[in-house]
């Protein structure tokens, strides 16, 4: 038996990455507009469900938009293609942001979004790969995404394929030791086909990360585990695109993306109580207004 990844050729007409060839200005403009769409979708989706994790959804929106619209080689028409890039949302509680991106990118129907967390919906509060095309791994408990990503990166290398693996982590979840087991593995193996992005919004469910279990100096920790590490503004699409597509050699890359939890909605930004609080109807109206309804 041979591996699918070796047996299946990339379709000649497959152009899964959108906007990669656009001019930097044009790309940044489109990404910015799309990220706004994602944020509006997040607010509406959480409003409809009357549940969700709005703070983290809004902090990770620019990262997800940049990845899905200009970096990841994915084709909504072939969501399980063996040569696809692998994207794993380790902070699975930010499913509303992921579902919004998947809907805008054509993996799922936008009509599904209002069913988020409703009885028997495919859109569970945490993503399920067996129900939602474009989801690579079922996450929810923290500290699970990076080990799976390491396995995926090893698989790519072992099969001689060239797909890349991207894992988005919350900063709070880095308190789970399994991440550092995986970081050690990836550094040891020099997995330069693996990128970890930390959504560094400095807030976890109950308090600031640095008041709970200190993470700083965070980039240095990754470097000590054998990774390249860079810090970027996690809301700057051009900067994100540049580091996502930067050539890598010999080491996995960690991008510490400095973000603001609740980004884009003034009364949610950087407030611990908005980890999973649901906005009132009036607050929803205000949020959508601020997001350029």
């Amino acid at each position, binding site marked *: *038996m*041979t*591996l*699918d*990844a*070796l047996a299946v050729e990339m379709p000649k007409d497959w152009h899964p990455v959108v906007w990669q060839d656009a001019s930097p200005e044009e790309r940044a403009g489109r990404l910015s507009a799309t990220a706004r769409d994602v944020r509006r979708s997040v607010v509406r989706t959480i409003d409809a469900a009357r549940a969700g994790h709005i703070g983290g959804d809004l902090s990770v929106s620019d990262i997800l938009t940049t990845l899905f619209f200009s970096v990841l080689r994915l084709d909504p028409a072939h969501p399980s293609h*063996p040569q696809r890039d*692998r994207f794993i949302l380790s902070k699975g509680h930010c499913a509303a942001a992921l579902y919004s991106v998947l809907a805008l990118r054509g993996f799922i129907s936008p009509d599904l979004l209002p069913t988020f967390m409703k009885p028997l919906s495919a859109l569970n509060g945490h993503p*399920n*790969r*067996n129900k939602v095309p474009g989801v*690579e*791994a*079922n*996450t*929810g*408990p923290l*500290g*699970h995404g*990076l*080990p*799976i*990503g*390491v*396995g*995926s*990166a*090893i*698989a*790519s290398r*072992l*099969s001689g*394929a060239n797909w890349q*693996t991207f894992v988005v982590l919350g900063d709070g979840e880095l308190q789970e*030791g*399994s991440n550092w*087991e*995986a970081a*050690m*593995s990836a550094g*040891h193996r020099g997995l330069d086909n693996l990128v970890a992005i930390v959504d560094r919004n400095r807030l976890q469910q109950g308090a600031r990360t640095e008041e709970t279990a200190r993470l700083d100096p965070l980039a240095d920790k990754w470097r000590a585990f054998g990774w390249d590490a860079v810090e970027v503004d996690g809301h700057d699409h051009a900067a994100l695109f540049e580091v996502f597509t930067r050539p890598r050699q010999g080491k996995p890359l960690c991008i510490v993306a400095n973000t603001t939890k609740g980004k884009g909605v003034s009364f949610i930004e950087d407030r611990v109580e908005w980890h999973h609080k649901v906005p009132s109807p009036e607050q929803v109206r205000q949020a959508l207004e601020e997001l350029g309804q």
Partner: protein
Amino acid sequence: MSALAVAPAPIFDCRQAFAETLIELARADARVVAVCNDSVGSSNLNGFKAEFPDRLINVGIAEQNMVGVAAGLANGGFVPFVCAASPFLTGRALEQIKADVAYNGYHVVLCGMSPGMAYGELGPTHHSIEDLSWLRAITGLSIVVPADPEQTSAAVRWALGAGKPAFLRVGRVKVPSVTTSSEPFRFGKADVLREGRDLTIIATGTLVSRALEAADALAARSISARVVNMSTITPLDEAVIIEAAKETGAIVTAEEAMVEGGLGAAVAETVVRHCPVPMRLLGVPGFAPTGGAEFLLDHFGLSRDGIVAAALELKG
């Protein structure tokens, strides 16, 4: 007892059959990889490593990562055989087994090496008597406990083709060959190794050969004991259990594991639903005192004499 002098049957450590079969499968199938936690020696993977150095992924002493990595390898088209001491594989990485393997539905083969009380004097931290109870509660995870080398080898072959998550409990306590069929392992099917009328002994893994010895001893007391090798714990062969309850009217279960949640509990759940009959459940009652594996099995009555005593309680 027979008057004829019979040489003791040769006994085997099932890890050897496991390792040899895995190498054979890896030669024919590029998808086979082994994942371990610094357990190359204890999982008998030195031969695999020598032949397939790139396909032996040793993540170091990091069980959570080990199981997550296996899920990622499965996502990439490989069939990972995760080989690690059962207490650490199942205890340390239980949430990864649930979430990363079972809930995702990835075809990962979890191989719990040296389960039960195989590590004897190393003590309860190193015993894996809880694994069957923990794993039975996980949806979609097949659980297989081979009783001898032939069955181990056949179960490894089955696991490669299973296409779904599986746990194989690979014994270290030496056992004689007990399977006689040309088909030593049939997934989801128990084997009736000996027919009997008065009661049924349902055993798994290490305890199967001891159950056969007990049936011999009971025969000398004119008690006809049926012996069933329950090599698949999930999904359970309910038909064989119901038949045993109806036809023999009493059941003894025996396993090198906690009764609570293990084979005994599984059989009892079936019996109570379909055909309640008197039962005795033999297993490990809790944390063991210091002692070697054979000593501890005898100490807890997981022996020929212990099984006979339980049978006499039911039929005496």
